[in-house]
């Protein structure tokens, strides 16, 4: 599971609230435990265990490894306590209290902004020193039905056996409940069971009638408690007494073993606090959001410059002072040049050497090679080539997949290579080079290669190619088709069944592409081409009610405010008069079945969209602005009108749904949602 790169991240506030609540619960728990003395209430011990277990879970999930480790050490001791492996002696209770105190301190340090606080070694050693090695799972027979016996947790098994030792009866309460009301019925039975004795566990049962839900409660009842009466209160189908209790509780439980004074095993030294981020001389680390804000401002400045240029031109055309006109034109030309260089300069701030990426790839390559038993070198050229920081981060997964693929399917085992007359050590070379506004990453291995005819044969076999389809001009492109993936034969390295189709999709989402060529016997080359900077699309952003949409700027002919005058009825349907043309008109809300907005009075803006072939007019609630947007494609499996192709974040945080202008115009031409009569 991917964790946030910086511990906590967006979750730190939530983590703190949750952690404080759990520590509060645990604090009450240990107070109650102290009051119980040497014979603690098992429910309390278990509740304390669960609080600390949950704390470990949330700390681990948000990336506070130090807190999770500390909670783990305390959890292990509490597990021993609830399982009866260590007694609830004052020494153990003291250690638990101290452990909780230390956890509170760690959480307070997180709250104070520390990234990675850890438990001091001495306390950790003490907690670990009290923990008993886990014993093999109890083998004593509880005389339970085998399917139930198999699904008992260690703790439940312990509670059941403890109940037996204490002279309690073990009873199975079988419930047979209606589908409609089983929640309530089960809840009632569980609370009755807890009131009568100890509810050890709730298990699925076997329903006699497939239209009913069956559950089975395992309950420990104190001596003298009437199992049949409990059955009646629970509306049970059946009550089975697994083992009868004794008339009186035994004098004492099995003697608890005292922890021997075993010295803690020499634990490996704790790693010190994480090294402070290195600050190289002459380098300033700037959060990406600040760079993004600058890029946005540069974009807006460029738009303002264009607007100024237009109005200045008009104003100067009528100016009589030729000297002043010349000066104004010269000043504007200078401004124009500066603004034109500002955008690329701001974008360049996002560029980092591709080395940050290739270093990661090299480490993963070495690990993968040794895991697969391959001997291979990874040689990189062109590490100084610059690439967008976001791309460098996002490219890691797809490129790693290509590398794994080369090791898994390309490079042969050392023995196979020797017998083929190749050097034992394989080689994967990565060459990175800029090419115009793109960066080309070429991975070449000297492995066994891919046989084009074999690829085509496999595609026919799996149905990707029909029997009568001609051979494709680029058979290797089939490798990237969903369903071709050899990941069906999942190897440990290929992992999660992610095939090359996912690599292609991910690269496409980043505005890139990938292709393969191969010579059987001598190797395979993957060529990945990505934009140097993420491609931003100038878009008109409009709003209908609460929903924002983005239309590519190149598809917008004009926008008009309150253009009711231009609307006329032609051929039985609403049209918009734009010059000589009568364009079909549609409301965007009606088109997408959105609730009709309040102010539908003809004063709303009209957007005239065109796709090079034809044009259409679109009524919206508001035109929010023009921005350069990074439009992300939306997967086909997300249900939506086909005119919505992706989504983009608008400066300010709103999400605009990206419209395919061609599809939208076609839809408007084919008739309005209300139905065309002509």
């Amino acid at each position, binding site marked *: 599971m991917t964790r946030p790169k910086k511990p906590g991240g967006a979750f730190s506030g939530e983590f703190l609230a949750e952690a404080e609540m759990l520590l509060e619960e645990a604090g009450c728990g240990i107070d109650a435990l102290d009051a119980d003395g040497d014979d603690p209430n098992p429910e309390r011990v278990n509740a304390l265990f669960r609080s600390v277990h949950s704390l470990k879970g949330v700390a681990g999930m948000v990336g506070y490894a130090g807190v999770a480790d500390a909670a783990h050490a305390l959890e292990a001791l509490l597990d021993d306590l609830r399982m009866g492996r260590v007694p609830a002696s004052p020494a153990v209770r003291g250690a638990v209290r101290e452990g909780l105190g230390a956890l509170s301190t760690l959480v307070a340090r997180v709250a104070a902004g520390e990234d990675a606080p850890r438990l001091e070694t001495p306390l950790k050693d003490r907690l670990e020193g009290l923990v008993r090695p886990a014993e093999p799972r109890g083998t004593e027979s509880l005389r339970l039905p085998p399917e139930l016996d198999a*699904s008992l947790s260690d703790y439940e098994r312990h509670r059941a056996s403890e109940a037996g030792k204490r002279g309690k009866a073990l009873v199975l309460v079988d419930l047979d409940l209606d589908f409609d009301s089983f929640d309530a019925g089960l809840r009632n039975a569980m609370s009755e069971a807890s009131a009568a004795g100890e509810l050890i566990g709730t298990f699925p049962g076997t329903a006699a009638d497939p239209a009913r839900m069956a559950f089975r409660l395992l309950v420990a009842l104190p001596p003298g408690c009437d199992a049949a009466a409990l059955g009646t209160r629970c509306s049970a189908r059946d009550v089975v007494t697994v083992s009868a209790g004794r008339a009186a509780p035994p004098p004492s439980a099995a003697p608890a073993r005292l922890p021997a004074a075993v010295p803690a095993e020499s634990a490996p030294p704790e790693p010190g606090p994480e090294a402070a981020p290195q600050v190289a001389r002459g380098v300033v680390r700037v959060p990406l959001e600040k760079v993004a804000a600058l890029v946005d401002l540069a974009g807006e400045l460029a738009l303002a410059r264009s607007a100024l240029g237009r109005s200045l031109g008009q104003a100067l055309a009528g100016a009589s002072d030729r000297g002043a006109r010349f000066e104004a034109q010269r000043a504007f030309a200078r401004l124009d040049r500066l603004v034109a260089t500002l955008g690329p300069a701001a974008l360049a701030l996002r560029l980092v050497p591709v080395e940050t990426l290739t270093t990661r790839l090299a480490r993963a390559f070495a690990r993968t090679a040794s895991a697969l038993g391959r001997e291979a070198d990874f040689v990189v050229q062109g590490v100084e080539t610059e690439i967008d920081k976001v791309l460098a981060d996002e490219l890691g997964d797809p490129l790693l997949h290509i590398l794994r693929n080369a090791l898994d399917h390309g490079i042969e085992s050392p023995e196979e290579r020797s017998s083929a007359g190749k050097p034992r050590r394989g080689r994967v070379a990565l060459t990175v080079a800029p090419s115009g506004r793109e960066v080309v990453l070429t991975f070449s291995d000297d492995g066994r290669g891919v046989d084009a005819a074999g690829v085509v044969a496999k595609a026919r076999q799996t149905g990707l190619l029909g029997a009568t389809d001609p051979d494709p001009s680029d058979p290797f492109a089939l490798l990237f088709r969903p369903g071709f993936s050899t990941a069906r034969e999942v190897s440990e390295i290929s992992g999660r069944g992610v095939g090359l189709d996912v690599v292609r999709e991910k690269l496409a989402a980043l505005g890139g592409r990938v292709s393969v060529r191969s010579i059987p016997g001598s190797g395979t080359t993957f060529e990945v081409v990505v934009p140097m900077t993420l491609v931003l699309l100038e878009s008109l952003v409009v709003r209908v009610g609460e929903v924002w949409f983005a239309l590519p700027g190149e598809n917008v002919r004009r926008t008009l405010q309150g253009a009711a005058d231009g609307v006329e009825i032609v051929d039985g349907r609403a049209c918009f008069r734009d010059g000589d043309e009568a364009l079909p008109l549609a409301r965007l809300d009606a088109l997408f079945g959105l609730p009709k907005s309040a102010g539908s009075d003809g004063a709303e803006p009209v957007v005239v969209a065109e796709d090079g072939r034809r044009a259409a007019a679109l009524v919206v609630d508001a035109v929010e602005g023009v921005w350069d947007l990074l439009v992300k494609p939306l997967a086909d499996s997300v*249900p939506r009108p086909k005119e919505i192709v992706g*989504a983009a974040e608008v400066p300010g945080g709103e999400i605009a749904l990206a419209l395919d202008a061609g599809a939208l115009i076609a839809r408007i031409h084919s008739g309005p949602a209300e139905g065309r009569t002509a």
Partner: protein
Amino acid sequence: MSGDGLLLAFRAGGERFAVPLDRVREAARPRRIAPLPGAPPEWSGVALVRGEAIGVIDVAAAMGLSHAHADPAPLVVVLYGSDHALLVDSIDGVETYPAGRVAPPPPGRGALHGIVAEELGFLSLLDVDRLAARGER
């Protein structure tokens, strides 16, 4: 699916649900979830997570439950193997149950693999593929 293995447990609409941990890519708090016109009601819309556009399924709505409150900072669980995320109210953590604890799901309760009875109610094991497919046209 067996009930063995690790589960990510979370709450939605006041009830507890879980999905197999190996299907979970990450939990995230997107700044916005943009509603998708024309999508079935259990789709709450589109979120941008790490720059990717992801369709968000509202677990509470899909299960016929209502949200306790409108969350100003929605919490989603992003899944592997699909371009979907689940909108949830809060995350309980990683849990595990032996297969023997999982009861078959009652019919008519939505896309579930099974349910596990717990001290305070139920943990419903979501069938994420069926959940997403229900919304497909």
